[in-house]
């Protein structure tokens, strides 16, 4: 497993953990205290910020050659796929809101934050997944 694959796995695990933990926290808090307070459990989504640490956790070893034209191509494809997924998530969420509140309605700030977060998460998931798929396809 090369560095790009390790980073992709790490990012997927972190995102999955953040979504699972925050979902569980919201569920538990909802049972205990009811809904407005339960949304505090979404604070655990902050765990997702750990994806920013991946390049530092999986550093390139000095003198090690681990990135060539094929890796570059895979990275480019993964970025393209992730951008596509992320953009469509963003568009879908916007269209959904139009249907939900109408073209002249107003959207809560929380929804905007959720939309941006969703787009970012879908980007990270899309990039990581596509990276793993491409390397697996080439048996790398």
């Amino acid at each position, binding site marked *: 497993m*090369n560095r790009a694959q390790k980073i992709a796995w790490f990012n997927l695990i972190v995102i999955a953990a953040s979504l699972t933990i925050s979902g569980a926290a919201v569920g538990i808090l909802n049972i205990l205290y009811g809904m407005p307070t339960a949304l505090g459990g979404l604070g655990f989504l902050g765990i997702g910020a750990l994806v920013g640490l991946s390049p530092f956790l999986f550093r390139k070893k000095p003198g090690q*050659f*681990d*990135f*060539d*034209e*094929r*890796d570059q*191509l895979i990275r480019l494809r993964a970025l393209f796929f992730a951008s596509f997924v992320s953009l469509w998530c963003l568009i879908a969420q916007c269209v959904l809101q139009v249907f939900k509140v109408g073209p002249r309605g107003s959207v809560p700030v929380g929804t905007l934050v959720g939309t941006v977060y969703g787009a970012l998460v879908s980007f990270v998931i899309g990039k990581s997944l596509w990276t793993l798929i491409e*390397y697996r*396809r*080439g*048996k*790398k």
Partner: protein
Amino acid sequence: MSTDVAKSELKNEVRRLRFENGQMTQQQLADKVGVTRQTIIAIEAGRYAPSLPLAFKIAHAFGKKIEEVFQYGDENS
């Protein structure tokens, strides 16, 4: 632009030439041409079509012409 190739499109003699050149390992060839061993594996398996500069480097590593290492489609049939 795709460099994933069907096995029938781009054939290569990399594996055979490695063995004919003193049982050269994939890692040794990779170091010689400046790529990772995994890229050599993918090229040998026909899952990745190298760029033209890389194809030349591989051919030069064996002291061969590019067409002796890589063949496209049915040109030999």
